[in-house]
């Protein structure tokens, strides 16, 4: 069965998802890791959209990209003061 354009699009999304997930583990700087987590969340939201669940995509976009990144960045700022 030949691949359609949508399959290639999904492959690219999954590939970037895996790359960002691994990058979060290997990046030493915490703030950079949080920013990469935003990219991971964006890819995850697009994949939810491809799986026909726009409800989860909106929640992932709001909670993953917006809230988690902002909260983590704020917590990172607070913990850096003590060092």
């Amino acid at each position, binding site marked *: 069965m030949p691949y359609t354009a949508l399959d290639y699009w999904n492959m690219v999304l999954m590939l970037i998802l895996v790359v960002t997930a691994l990058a979060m583990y290997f990046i030493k700087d915490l703030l950079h890791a949080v920013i990469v987590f935003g990219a991971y969340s964006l890819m995850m939201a697009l994949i939810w959209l491809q799986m026909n669940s*726009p*409800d989860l*995509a*909106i*929640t992932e976009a*709001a*909670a993953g990209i*917006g*809230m988690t990144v*902002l*909260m983590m960045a*704020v*917590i990172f*700022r*607070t913990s850096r*003061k003590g060092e």
Partner: protein
Amino acid sequence: MRDFILKRAASLILPFIFVYGIYVILHGAVSPGGSFAGGIIVGLSFIAFSTIYGIEQGRAKLPEKVLVWTESYGTLWYGLMGLVGLVRGVPFLANKLAGVDLGTPGTLSSGGLIPLIGLGVGIRVASTIVTLFFTIMEEER
């Protein structure tokens, strides 16, 4: 006077983010999204405001009293909407059984009590997120 461009851009964009959050909350029954996602978007608009304009300005917009009030009464509003079913003699949180007119499917009013319940949940989620953010930010000092 720091970040002039950021403040100008935020003052243009943030009202639309806020209204979009209200839209997602109220259309939770008929379109993707829901009260939780909409509440996060509403809360995020306030969090972005206090990040850009400073924590004091954010505190002035949403004082501690308002946050406590919305956080408590949002949950109470959910329970109050559930009591509508009990008052009509049907199970808790009943919607169509309680005699609520559901209208034509697909329109905004076809949810019955759901948009009203979602409003309570959305307000509660938004104020919880903003409270968390303020708590973390003020611990910094």
